[in-house]
């Protein structure tokens, strides 16, 4: 009874292909994962964010060179700390985040599940959706990825870093479902 649609599995990567939604209303019943390219994009993003961490060993190193009062051990300690944090941000967190992210869209609801330490599962009745956008920053664009942003009257939700065609699919699917659900009532 549960069927997975071919176009949402990983095989679907042909950009620019259009889709006909007729007869597709009973679509995805299973949770989808994000494309593995999203990990790469997050790694780039997180390495940019972890640059400020290196200000600390940089400052200590500056003191070490120009002011002998700082011992080399402190410098080493800060460098190791910075390496550890950077590794955490750049390698571990994107991996966990990717593993935890799951989403499901059907004619009734949008079901999101994500979180690194705190796992959140969010349900949004499709009828409540006011608008859906796709958004793309420079990093996501370089990997041909895009976020889908879903807004209700009170909240906004994001399915991050989907491949461009999937993002477009999901967006138009949600808006079709939303329109249909509203017509039903």
């Amino acid at each position, binding site marked *: 009874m549960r069927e997975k649609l071919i176009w949402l599995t990983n095989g679907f990567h042909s950009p620019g292909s259009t889709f006909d939604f007729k007869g597709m209303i009973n679509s995805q019943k299973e949770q989808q994962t994000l494309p593995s390219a999203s990990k790469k994009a997050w790694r780039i993003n997180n390495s940019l964010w972890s640059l400020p961490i290196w200000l600390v060993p940089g400052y200590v190193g500056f003191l070490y060179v120009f002011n002998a009062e700082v011992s080399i051990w402190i410098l080493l300690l800060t460098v190791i700390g910075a390496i550890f944090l950077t590794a955490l941000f750049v390698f571990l967190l994107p991996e966990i985040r990717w593993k935890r992210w799951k989403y499901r869209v059907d004619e009734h609801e949008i079901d999101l599940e994500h979180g690194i330490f705190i796992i*959140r599962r969010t349900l949004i009745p499709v009828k409540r959706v006011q608008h859906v956008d796709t958004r793309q920053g420079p990093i996501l664009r370089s990997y041909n990825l895009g976020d889908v942003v879903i807004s*209700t009257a009170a909240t906004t939700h994001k399915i991050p870093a989907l491949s461009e065609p999937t993002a477009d699919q999901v967006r138009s699917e949600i808006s079709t479902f939303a329109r249909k659900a509203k017509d039903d009532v």
Partner: protein
Amino acid sequence: MFEPRRQHPVAGLTQLLHILKENWITLLILFFVGTGSESAWGIYAVLGFTVLSAVGGVISWWRFTYQVEDGELQIKQGIFVRKQLYLSRERIQVIDISAGLVQRVFDLVSVEVKTAGSTSKEAKIDAITRTEAERLKRLLRSEELPKEDEAVKSETSKTYKIGIKELFLAAFTSGNFGVTLSIVGGAFSQIDQVIDEDRMLRFFEWLIPASVGVGLVFTTLLFVVIISWLFSIFGTLIKYYDFTLTVKDDALLIKRGLFEQKQLTIPFDRIQAIQIKEELLREPFGYASIVLESAGYADQQQSLNSTTLYPFLKKVEVQQFIQQVIPEYNACVEPVNPPFVALRRYLLRMVWVSLIVIVPAWIFVPYGVYSLFLLIPALIIGYAQYRDAEIGISGDTMMVQWRLLSRKAAIVRKHRIQSAETKVNPFQRRLGLMNYTLTVASGSGGRTFAIRELEKETGNQFLEWISPASTKQKESFDTDQNSIID
């Protein structure tokens, strides 16, 4: 024949007061911060701001014109950016004529024109004479509407009016300490710059003779609390004086206020949720207040999100009241509570919270170690939070009850829920617990209702309940459908 007209010049004054009212917290901070012992730039800053606002008020009065042409109200306003508002007679739904304090002094009225629809435009003429207002109303009223209105009003409206005894009880038990406490506290922190400490000490000794040994800190605290309480009492008296709730066919009409009578109309289809609040001082006496969350009906003066539906009511009468006023929110639920394992998380959380106060007090304040006694009320509150956490559904209605300090319950209809969420942190995962959050629209944003430490199965059930799909397979609700998260 209908020339563009200006308002009465008093509109400049009301504009000024409006700006001051909007910014009173900033001004207060400026005043207290900037009024040190040697310089007084705060006073100049406040004065400067007031003068600027006054000039702004006059200019905005000058730039505001209105006229009625071809049954269309045209308003032009704005100091730098000209805004033009055109409202046709057919779309106008409500014309509210009211008078605030300033208006009453000058024998003027303000006119509010409201239209319906999703893009609810709204126009307000701040100060015109009553005859002018009547003229406008005549010009803008479509012919059929008013009679219908009258007829409805006389036939099917129920009215609830707060009695004078209730009002005073409400005022004395109003727990609105938070805001007033911080203001009075802020004022007190500045007092030592005006009066020197010796004199203040003598003042307190005179005020509370027995307190000589107790210490200045305690008496000051008591004093601050009493003053905040008085503020809170008068605030409530003024706010809810003559509170009248009228139930009409399609809307609730609320009138209240001593100096400035406010009037609110809330169409039933805008109601998103209701909340029953048992404020700390009211709970022991078995009283509560009811608050409405509504959305999509913007009101300039008071952004209409949370509105008091009734300020003071016996808890045992709440259900009957809801049944009479908004029957679709009357639900009899069999509530579920968090499991026993959750108790220790509720208690621990309160311990952490109280440690935020205790540790600095211990270190920095003499005799601060006695703040350890705070743990006792903290644990009691933690237990009460555990005991009062409840969630339940009945048909399409959900009830969530929780406590932070005071006990609150929210009643939500399924088709008003914007989203629901469960959250599990690593500690909760070990114990099989989760937090549950609901969001409904309120004003232009949202309001969330949350209940902590539910059993995982319960949380998932209530999460999936909000899905429209669950209505269709209601009978399978009790069966186990919570395997998705694993």
